[in-house]
């Protein structure tokens, strides 16, 4: 039993205590000083950069929306998209191979990942570009059996195809690890519940496991897309007219190197920013059904 204390028993200063809500702000002079110095330094750097006449902003503006540049930009986007498509599809397959109970499939996935993570993408691209020297003819045949179909390598592996394979395989090696981690992150109880409901392993994967794995897969995939976007600039070595190659072609003619490189940089910046923005929405979509960090609901409608 605690004794009941009447307010009359309290001393005068406890009758009407102050409230911290009325407190004044705490003075932090160092924070202010550091903030001001930092802001000034950054501002000066940016202004100097912007006002440098060597930047030739008018040239930048001239080429920013030049049809040739835009065509290069489209090629960069197409390459990024296709490389990621190959990377994600093949990566999912490799991840499933890795988790399969069949040993040769595990070994294949392991070997593939090892190989294409080890070879520098630049070397891989040049290699694929010159594939015809090594393998003059590509054919489809039954192992140790008859040939069903064959084709000249140079016809089949155009620079475009070489670029897609090179970038795509490289991405697949990285994506398979990301997807595998995602698949492993899904609680086994989810699979068991699906199996007990009579879902086949394929349906379970498609409807239950993958959608939940996506929550873990998306954030690193976002970084992978951005890195792919920049990685596509490597294809200029096999004379694919992507953004960078187009820019190089122009400045080798006009010698306006700096402003043209600025055009490329600005475009890469714009695309990356758009991608980062889009990632937020995709993350939110796959984050449904999970409490957001900080305990807030992901969907307002969910409060009911």
């Amino acid at each position, binding site marked *: 039993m605690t004794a009941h204390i009447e307010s009359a028993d309290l001393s005068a200063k406890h009758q009407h205590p102050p409230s911290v809500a009325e407190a004044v702000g705490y003075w932090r002079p160092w924070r202010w000083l550091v903030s001001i110095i930092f802001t000034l330094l950054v501002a000066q750097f940016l202004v100097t950069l912007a006002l440098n006449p060597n930047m030739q902003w008018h040239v930048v503006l001239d080429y920013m929306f030049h049809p040739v540049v835009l065509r290069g930009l489209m090629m960069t986007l197409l390459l990024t998209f296709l490389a990621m498509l190959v990377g994600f599809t093949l990566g999912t397959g490799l991840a499933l191979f890795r988790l399969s109970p069949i040993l040769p499939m595990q070994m294949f996935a392991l070997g593939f990942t090892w190989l294409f993570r080890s070879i520098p993408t630049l070397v891989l691209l040049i290699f694929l570009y010159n594939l015809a020297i090594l393998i003059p003819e590509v054919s489809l045949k039954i192992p140790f059996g008859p040939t069903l179909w064959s084709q000249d390598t140079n016809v089949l592996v155009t620079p475009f195809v070489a670029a897609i394979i090179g970038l795509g395989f490289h991405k697949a090696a990285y994506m398979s690890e990301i997807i595998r981690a995602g698949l492993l992150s899904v*609680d086994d*109880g*989810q699979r*068991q*519940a*699906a*199996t*007990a*409901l*009579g*879902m*086949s*392993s394929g*349906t379970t994967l498609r*409807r*239950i496991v993958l*959608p*939940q794995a996506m*929550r873990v897969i998306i954030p690193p995939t976002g970084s992978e897309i951005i890195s792919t976007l920049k990685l596509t600039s490597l294809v200029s070595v096999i004379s694919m007219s992507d953004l960078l190659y187009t820019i190089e072609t122009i400045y080798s003619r006009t010698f306006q190197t700096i402003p043209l490189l600025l055009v490329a940089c600005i475009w890469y910046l714009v695309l990356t920013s758009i991608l980062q923005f889009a990632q937020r929405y995709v993350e939110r979509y*796959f984050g*449904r*059904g*999970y*409490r957001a960090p900080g305990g807030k*609901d992901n969907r307002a*409608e*969910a409060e*009911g």
Partner: protein
Amino acid sequence: MKSSGVIMKTVQPVVFAHEVRKRFGENEVLRGVNLNVHASEVVVILGSSGSGKSTFLRCLNQLEEIDGGWIEIDGDPAGYEVVGGVVRPLGDRRKVLQRRALGMVFQQFNLFQHLTALENVTEAPISVRGTPKAEARDKALALLETVGLADRARLYPYQLSGGQQQRVAIARALAMEPKVMLFDEPTSALDPELVGEVLSVMKTVAKAGTTMIVVTHEMGFAQEVSDRVEFMDNGVIVQSGPFNELVSNPASAKVAAFVRQAIH
């Protein structure tokens, strides 16, 4: 009705388990379990932790492969077939079809985290049975109504209490219209005040004539709802009979001790 040659009763049990054996490495978990459950029967399995109750339920719906014995669900041999006197394992496709005859409710609910309560219930009917969406939805809403959660249909699992999640899980299993419902300690993960709502839903399901096998420590439920209690100890069923008989006339000191402790 298929004549399997194993049983010759006039009424075929919905669940027929004969000398079921299961080993995990050196650890023999089920050492010849026998159990027959007839249509509309409610059987409660009791037994201390680690005695093999969960493993047995998982063997019934083939989440685990058995090492010996024989299981039939509604006359259909589970996981095997007998062709010309030879016992052969079935392919995965056939096993998947067989599992639909059994609904399972887990201790940890295992609701699909990325789906709302309603979607949890409609998912299997749509993706497994190909039920039209509108039809699956109407039926799911009716089932959610039965478990008292019609107003929570649009919420995600994490927005529901444990008791509500387990009720959704029951509705989800019922949506596939299984011949038997298996419950593996459905209230063990719940706060004490939430146990009652789940048990009352289970009672409703039992009253509707559903064949049920329930692993639980809830003696009140066993006494009130079960037709029969099976006591499992160390991988075998050591006593089988009405609840009151188990209490008044325990077959062994172990059964007596378990009952005394569970009833307080």
